[in-house]
């Protein structure tokens, strides 16, 4: 074919003229007609009173996906890992290798950057438990003064294993600021939806600020010298007090995911004819 682009254009025009199943029109500007999540629906929920001292307990609504800052420049190793990740934004779902595609854990810190429609805290002696609406899971943040484990994933028999949600310790910097440090996140998890990687050397700091009764802010800092050339703040987000103080049930169900791949994912990527 001497001029495939011209042939392509003529062929496409012919197909559209002949076909009477459906017709295409220019995409209208999306108007979703409603809020994106409970966070947006709650709007300005006011202060609700003064912030209690050293207290995060409660159910909090966040955005579906945190607003992310650009990552710091990657190291050569980081770039190599990044290019192995096929996101569902860049590839058809069937061809993506996003761990979430198989309902694998989001892991930490991705769990604080995506699917944050609902998080909750409860405080117990010596620890704070953070719970996530998505997949109804939790992480433990030790507040009993223990140090973070060393050499997670190291070669010695005593070295602790990496975990999807890492190892976390926290302390109250003052009455309203709770600081959490985390190491040992399993490097099979992605940092974010864009497929940015992290290494076993990742250290994450979350700084929660109880603004008032109804509002909780968080700043998350990434420090991973194997992957990024310098530490960076990946997000500054906020959460709002959920009036009903309860979660929806929201699971990634492997069998439903498999149905989705069969009915939608595979045909969308590879055709059905």
């Amino acid at each position, binding site marked *: 074919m001497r001029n495939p682009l011209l042939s392509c254009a003529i062929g496409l025009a012919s197909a559209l003229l002949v076909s*009477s199943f459906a017709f295409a*029109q220019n995409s209208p500007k999306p108007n979703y007609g409603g809020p994106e999540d409970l966070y947006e629906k709650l709007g300005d929920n006011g202060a609700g009173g003064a912030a209690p001292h050293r207290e995060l307990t409660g159910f909090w609504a966040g955005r579906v996906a945190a607003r992310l800052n650009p990552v710091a420049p990657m190291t050569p190793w980081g770039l190599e890992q990044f290019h192995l990740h096929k996101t569902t934004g860049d*590839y058809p779902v069937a061809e993506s290798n996003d761990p979430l595609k198989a309902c694998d854990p989001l892991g930490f810190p991705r769990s604080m950057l995506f699917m944050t429609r609902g998080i909750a805290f409860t405080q117990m002696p010596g620890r704070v438990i953070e719970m996530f609406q998505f997949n109804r899971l939790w992480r433990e943040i030790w507040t009993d003064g223990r140090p973070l484990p060393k050499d997670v994933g190291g070669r010695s028999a005593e070295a602790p294993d990496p975990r999807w949600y890492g190892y976390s310790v926290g302390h109250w910097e003052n009455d309203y600021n709770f600081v959490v440090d985390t190491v040992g996140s399993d490097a099979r998890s992605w940092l974010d939806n*864009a497929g940015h990687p992290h290494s076993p050397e990742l250290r994450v700091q979350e700084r929660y600020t109880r603004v008032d009764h109804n509002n909780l802010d968080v700043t998350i800092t990434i420090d991973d010298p194997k992957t990024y050339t310098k530490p960076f703040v990946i997000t500054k987000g906020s959460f709002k007090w959920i009036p009903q103080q309860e979660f929806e049930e929201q699971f990634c169900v492997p069998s439903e995911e498999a149905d989705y791949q069969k009915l939608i994912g595979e045909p969308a990527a590879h055709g059905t004819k």
Partner: protein
Amino acid sequence: MKNKLFLSFALFGWILTVCGPSFAHHGTASYKTDKVVVLKHVTVTKYVWANPHTMLLFDAKNDHGIVSHWAGEAGSPAAVRLLGWTKLSLQPGDVITVQLYPSKFESNVGRVEKIELANGTTLRDSPRGDRGVLSRY
């Protein structure tokens, strides 16, 4: 008329064959997000209220009575519930109009833009921001 339909599919197949390089899909997601396909008076065959996506299966019949089977995906129940959808929004047999973003490939699959029910109610899908990933769940 069947010949017209056959010609349509044949042309489409030929386009994909001849214009492969122009339609290379690596680096893009599954759907054409700049066009909306409108399928009028289609019949719901299955409605799946599940994660990661609400799914809708339906039959579209052309002017000549030829039926094609379609599948559309929308946001998760948690996402579309906020836009007025419920597990009872659709039932097999309902006749509706579906607007969707079609697959870039040769398949009757798409991402729902909106659905118009027989009673005039419109159900819109949830946002697809964040490089198409946001509303997967």
